[in-house]
């Protein structure tokens, strides 16, 4: 009753005070009172002083407070210039302002805009308001709002969030959100909790987790700082000079702490000497004799002794100074027990991460292996099965890739053009292969070195021809959109779809090869001709035709490989030459005449190259160098490759 009377009284008072009709109906509502108690800070709108006001609003925990914060943030809070009462305002027609009550949001009416002043929080204040709003949002009825609040915390956590988050876990009904809240609560505990034991428990609770946000929470805790003192304090980790710490850096720290004089570097020494040149002498020594470091140091010492220069700091001085002090590391991010727990957790994570990285590396290696396999499988047919060495094989790969490029010029749809390019590339290189076999290679069977030379000639000519037609710059072969992106397993392991496609293509090739060689008439005849051409021809097989078809088949596969490689790398006239040596290595390492050997060879060469690149990530050129050296050594131990034929078959 009393309240009602008071309200009416205030209302009347206000009505009397204001000329307009617009009033804050409930000037004594708790929220208005709260606002008024911090009125000065709020109106001042300064980031430095606003903190208590926002905290007070947040602490009140009422729905009104939430609305106030939201509308304040949205720049919809106004106050009356005379009374200082706060209202929500929306600009209406004719320069008027539509007013709403801060308590409950009921419409009050309209008033001239000039009587009111808008609160315009700057971005810093808006950020603080947003942080304060989080606790309201965490308990919002709409799960989507709660999720957004959690996102906000993850992005930019603050000490204040911890309590709000903890309070919101109990009432949470959504199981997914509850799990998320619990996880974030532990992360925040690690970062902000006061109690060390609590933090350590939170850190231990995360064992087995590899995620980036956990690492981000732990890393600041284990930050250390290099310190120096005469005596080692308790529980500090010693850093040995010359082992973990370079002499120069250690001495630089001493200089920085004013514990030792700066070193006389050659530049200063030189300039000091030049400054002291008198005629042809420095301190009584002929300038012309100062062409060694020792002579200069000696003169400098004389200058220093006579007070004309800073004393010379010799190597012995440096060593002496370093011996007098002990260097150690202290944790700056957290108390020692917490830091140690964090360190242990990080070590654990690193170990697990290494495992993931190994898996990722293996996947990388596998995809490189499938590229080598694609490039080498055609060779495995011409070189491995027929014993014909084709140095123009790389140029067939290039021809396939350019076929793909030309098709894309005419067919703009990437999916369709790739589907068209694959059979077309096969046809083009099949034709080229057959032509080369008919014109060149068949005259040179049983003369491997001459075949090698003649096909070199073809390779040189084809490369230059491609340069004449397509120019020297790289041409694009664009993959269809559905091959963009990657398949992501976790934070570390990811593999792009295009690599998966190449891997699948390699497997298809393997299957096609096995099918053709083992299940078709052509394969049977090829094997017959390879093993005993005379016998085969006396049984009615035409070895000429078989050789021609086999060579065409091998070349055609090179063309398809060219399309695949073109998608992954750029199409240039030299792309074939880039793969030819690796392709031969793959076939030789695997064991000539065996497709499984080629598969193993490609896997070995691919994973090994990735492995070497991982050891020395800045340098793929060096990786290739070491790779080739490794292969040369490998051939020492298995001259006939991984899968070697023995006995009479090997000598054929």
């Amino acid at each position, binding site marked *: 009753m009393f309240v009602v009377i008071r309200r009416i009284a205030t209302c009347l008072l206000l009505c009397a005070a204001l000329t307009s009709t617009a009033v804050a109906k409930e000037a004594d509502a708790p929220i208005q009172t709260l606002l008024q108690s911090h009125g000065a800070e709020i109106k001042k709108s300064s980031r430095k002083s606003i903190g208590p006001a926002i905290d007070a609003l947040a602490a009140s925990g009422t729905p009104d407070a939430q609305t106030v914060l939201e509308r304040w943030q949205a720049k919809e809070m106004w106050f009356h210039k005379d009374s200082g009462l706060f209202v929500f305002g929306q600009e209406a027609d004719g320069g008027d302002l539509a007013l709403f009550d801060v308590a409950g949001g009921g419409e009050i009416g309209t008033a001239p805009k000039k009587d009111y002043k808008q609160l315009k929080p700057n971005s810093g204040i808006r950020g603080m308001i947003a942080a304060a709003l989080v606790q309201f949002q965490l308990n919002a009825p709409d799960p989507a709002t709660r999720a957004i609040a959690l996102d906000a915390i993850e992005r930019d956590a603050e000490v204040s969030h911890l309590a709000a988050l903890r309070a919101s876990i109990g009432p949470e009904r959504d199981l997914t959100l509850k799990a998320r809240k619990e996880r974030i609560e532990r992360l925040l505990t690690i970062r902000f909790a006061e109690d060390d034991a609590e933090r350590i428990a939170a850190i231990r609770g995360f064992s087995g987790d590899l995620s980036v946000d956990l690492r981000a929470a732990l890393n600041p805790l284990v930050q250390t700082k290099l310190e120096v003192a005469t005596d080692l304090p308790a529980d500090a980790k010693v850093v040995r000079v010359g082992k973990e710490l370079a002499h120069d850096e250690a001495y630089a720290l001493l200089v920085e702490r004013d514990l030792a004089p700066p070193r006389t570097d050659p530049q200063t020494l030189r300039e000091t000497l030049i400054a002291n040149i008198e005629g042809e002498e420095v301190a009584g020594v002929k300038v012309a004799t100062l062409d060694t470091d020792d002579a200069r140091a000696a003169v400098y010492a004389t200058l220093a002794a006579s007070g004309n220069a800073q004393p010379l700091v010799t190597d012995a001085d440096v060593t002496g100074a370093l011996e007098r002090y002990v260097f150690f590391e202290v944790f700056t991010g957290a108390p020692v027990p917490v830091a140690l727990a964090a360190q242990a957790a990080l070590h654990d994570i690193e170990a697990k991460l290494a495992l993931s990285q190994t898996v990722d590396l293996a996947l990388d290696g596998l995809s490189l292996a499938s590229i080598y396999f694609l490039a080498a499988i055609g060779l495995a047919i011409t070189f491995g099965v027929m014993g014909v060495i084709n140095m123009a094989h790389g140029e067939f790969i290039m021809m396939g890739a350019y076929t793909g490029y030309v098709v894309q010029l005419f067919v703009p749809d990437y999916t369709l053009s790739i589907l068209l390019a694959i059979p077309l590339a096969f046809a083009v290189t099949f034709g080229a292969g057959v032509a080369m076999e008919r014109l060149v290679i068949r005259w040179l069977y049983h003369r491997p070195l001459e075949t090698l030379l003649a096909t070199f000639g073809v390779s040189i000519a084809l490369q230059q021809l491609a340069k004449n037609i397509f120019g020297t710059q790289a041409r694009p072969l664009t993959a269809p959109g559905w091959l963009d992106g990657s398949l992501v397993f976790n934070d570390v392991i990811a593999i792009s779809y295009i690599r998966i496609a190449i891997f699948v293509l390699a497997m298809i090739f393997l299957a096609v090869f096995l099918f053709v060689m083992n299940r078709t008439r052509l394969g049977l005849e090829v094997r017959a001709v390879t093993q005993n051409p005379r016998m085969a021809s006396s049984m009615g097989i035409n070895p000429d035709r078989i050789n021609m078809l086999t060579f065409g088949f091998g070349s055609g596969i090179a063309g398809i490989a060219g399309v695949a490689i073109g998608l992954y790398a750029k199409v240039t006239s030299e792309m074939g030459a880039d793969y030819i040596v690796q392709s031969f290595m793959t076939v030789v390492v695997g064991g000539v005449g065996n497709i499984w050997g080629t598969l193993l060879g490609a896997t070995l060469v691919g994973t090994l190259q990735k492995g070497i690149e991982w050891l020395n990530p800045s340098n793929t050129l060096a990786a290739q160098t070491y790779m080739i050296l490794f292969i040369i050594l490998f051939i020492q131990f298995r001259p006939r490759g991984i899968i070697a034929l*023995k*006995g*009479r*078959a090997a000598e054929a």
Partner: protein
Amino acid sequence: MSTLLEVSGVSVSFDGFKAINNLTFQINDAEMRAVIGPNGAGKTTFMDIITGKTRPDSGSVLWGEKSVSLLSMSESRIAQEGIGRKFQRPTVFEDQSVADNLMLALKKERGPLSVLGFRPSTTDGEKVVDLAEQIGLATALHRKSGELSHGQKQWLEIGMLLAQEPRLLLVDEPAAGMTPAEREHTTELLVEAAKTRAVVVVEHDMEFVRRLGCKVTVLHEGSVLAEGSLDHVTSDEKVIEVYLGR
């Protein structure tokens, strides 16, 4: 007479197929031996093992008075020890003259540097001429060996073997593709050679073996089936069974 070569318990297999199975064989100084056997009996592999081309999986091959093992030696080292081998097909260096071929084979230092400084002496020239006369190629000394007939190439190869002055000669089917007159001459050459050194002849042709008139070893499925004079082995039940089938 002392044992020159002793092969004992040698086995070798290629991809699971046992080419030589626990083979034991001995030959003495200045002995002629014929080795016969059906196709796939392991005759060529047997020679490959002695000359170091193939390494056996087990067993031992001992050589000479000091019984040194040949298994750890390279082909060229074994050849320098005094084991000469003639292949089934004549393999002479067709691009070079008969004299060059013989000079190449002459027993001399084999290292690159000593060969680089080598200039033939008068005695070397005489040796080459003597050998050429022995093999009936004295008039063909300056002809390219590629121009020779098949039989002449066979002789040239035998001549090259003799020039090496080996203590053991391994001869693989020396009479294949020869005319009767050429066979006669080949037999003479081999019999003459066997007077001063051990000779192992691998041959299919029974008539040729009979003419050599020496001890015979019969190989079957990689091991010794029978050993003795030709008449003895041809009357052996097992040998007849292997050669004629059941």
